């Protein structure tokens, strides 16, 4: 896990100098023989560009089913209950490890994914999937605080401001991250598997959650935009999307100084996928320099694609945005969520259920 962090900070140092001029780029070409087939994608909500799927459908002559989920746990539950027919899923690091262990993923055939070479080398071979047998990075980002600048003219730099805010707050339905933040305050390992520590984190959150009106399922940015809440704990890109959308400074994103969660989401193929070959073709498509850049330009998350970054296809605004590529000293304080094993998973799930029951009291 430490290794992941070091890699990320190394990568960040690379970024500012990385503006090569725009190169000539061959548009991605689909291998022959997939016409008329179907690909089913199960991805996070608001996590793809408008034209990513239509362009793929046109290039390969295929049909794509596209469904969304709101948390790793929700996706995992669906696949565990028997894959209903998805070919592509986008689990975060720890979830890749969990799924690999439970034999819920199909190994990737790198011969079918030449664009894997575009991935920033430091992001390959992460601890959760050392040989990239099951996963290749999709995007990476952080969990932080989206807030209304009108309510917080001086910004937010501490979780205490979130806990103490006298107004409606939305938390994120990402249990390991939320408990991990509490662990930071309790001086525990964010990925602790100790029952007492997990319960202490639960109690800490219940105590600090008096102003929480809803635990949002990856839609906190919408609640912020509607004016239902003043603060939404969310993934960085989701908050940046609404700022970009309204072309205003009404919303801002911050990572509190105490630290938070950093994650890498990955493209993987679940067991019993009806069309794994086409899924690998799709992974290759996403890792194309231009496709990857278009994706990042639209969803405002950090790209793991070196070719996208170096080609100059990604907007400079994004490459320079500290909310997307946080400065190294901030990255050092971030923790990644890892696979805690089946027993701790149950402890965490029980703690989370209890938290939901008591948050409203």
């Amino acid at each position: 896990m430490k290794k992941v962090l070091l890699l990320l900070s190394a990568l960040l140092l690379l970024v500012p100098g990385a503006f090569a001029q725009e190169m000539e780029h061959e548009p991605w070409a689909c291998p022959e023989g997939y016409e008329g087939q179907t690909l089913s994608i199960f991805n996070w909500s608001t996590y793809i560009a408008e034209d990513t799927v239509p362009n793929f459908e046109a290039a390969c002559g295929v049909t794509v089913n596209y469904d969304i989920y709101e948390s790793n746990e929700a996706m995992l539950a669906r696949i565990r209950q028997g894959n209903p027919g998805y070919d592509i899923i986008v689990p975060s690091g720890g979830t890749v490890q969990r799924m690999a262990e439970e034999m819920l993923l199909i190994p990737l055939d790198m011969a079918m994914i030449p664009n894997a070479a575009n991935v920033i080398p430091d992001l390959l071979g992460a601890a959760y999937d050392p040989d990239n047998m099951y996963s290749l990075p999709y995007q990476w980002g952080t969990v932080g605080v989206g807030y209304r600048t009108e309510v917080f003219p001086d910004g937010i730099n501490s979780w205490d401001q979130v806990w103490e805010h006298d107004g409606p707050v939305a938390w994120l339905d990402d249990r390991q991250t939320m408990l991990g933040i509490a662990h930071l305050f309790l001086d525990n390992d964010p990925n602790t598997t100790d029952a007492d520590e997990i319960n202490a984190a639960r109690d800490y959150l219940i105590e600090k959650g008096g102003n929480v009106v809803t635990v949002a399922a990856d839609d906190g940015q919408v609640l912020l935009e509607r004016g239902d809440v003043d603060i939404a704990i969310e993934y960085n890109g989701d908050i940046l999307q609404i700022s970009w959308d309204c072309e205003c400074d009404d919303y801002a994103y911050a990572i509190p100084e105490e630290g938070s969660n950093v994650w890498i989401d990955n493209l993987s193929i679940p067991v019993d996928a009806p069309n794994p070959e086409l899924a690998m073709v799709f992974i290759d498509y996403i890792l194309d320099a231009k496709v990857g850049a278009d994706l990042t330009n639209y969803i405002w998350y950090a790209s793991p694609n070196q070719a996208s970054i170096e080609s100059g296809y990604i907007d400079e605004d994004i490459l320079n945005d500290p909310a997307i590529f946080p400065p190294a000293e901030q990255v050092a304080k971030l923790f990644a969520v890892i696979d805690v094993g089946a027993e701790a998973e149950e402890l965490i799930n029980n703690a989370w259920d209890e938290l939901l029951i008591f948050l409203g009291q």
Partner: protein
Amino acid sequence: MAAPGRLINEGALGRNRALRRLGKLGLWLNPAAAYFFLWAPILILVLFSFNDSRSVSSFNGFTLKWYGNILNNVMGAESAFSTEIMLNAFRNSLFVGTVATAIATVLGTMIALAMARGRFRGKGLLEGLLFLPVVIPEITQAISLAIFFKVLFDWVALMSGERIFPGFHTIIAAHVTFNISYVAIVVRARLADMNPQLEEAAKDLGANPWQAFWRVTFPLMLPGVISGALLAFTLSLDDFVITFFTAGVGTTTLPVFVYGLLKLTVTPEVNAISTIMMVLSTILIGISLAIQGRGASRI
């Protein structure tokens, strides 16, 4: 003795009259409040779909731009919406609704007939069974079907090595299951109102049971069958919870689509889409009522 009694009576009458006036007032006020309660939210939704601002607290002038946004698929950063996806979801809903209604209508009518005309053991038990799907909470039925299909498909995979994926067939099976009871209840009500002597008359006139059924019973119970089918179709189109739990990949129905939309899209466009859907469903209902009215009056 008579005089005081009369007095008391008049006092009571006076009080009664005052109360009655109050009651009358209440009898007007209460429905007025209830109608307001029923209609205000929907009308406000429609009104604000024309609001020239993202605000939902003040009306800043008339605009059609949210409707334009829908038609041109400009929905900002959200790609949760496109007209194509919505139309596809609508088609899926119609497909599921039509097939599920057809099966449920046949099965529901059959059992209604059996219950009304047949005499066999276990009828009482069957009656209870038929009543249950109506009174069991939707979420219980939804999870029971979700587990059932998982167990069934795991078993099939174990036996044959072939994996079955959930899809339209699982949604339709689920819809048929909750619709059978509604159809049966409506048809039975119609059969109960029918005069059984008409069948007797047909019998006396020398008709065989088959003829009696198709010439007498069936035409008479048809309005009930149509009402039951319409009810089933409406329930099917509106169902979210059970569909959500039994859906497969690429089987997004309109309510499932709308749910995602409500969660992930900001207000004005959703108001516009909701308004369009309301207008559409009113037209659909109008047409079906007209058909039903004509059908009923002919019989």
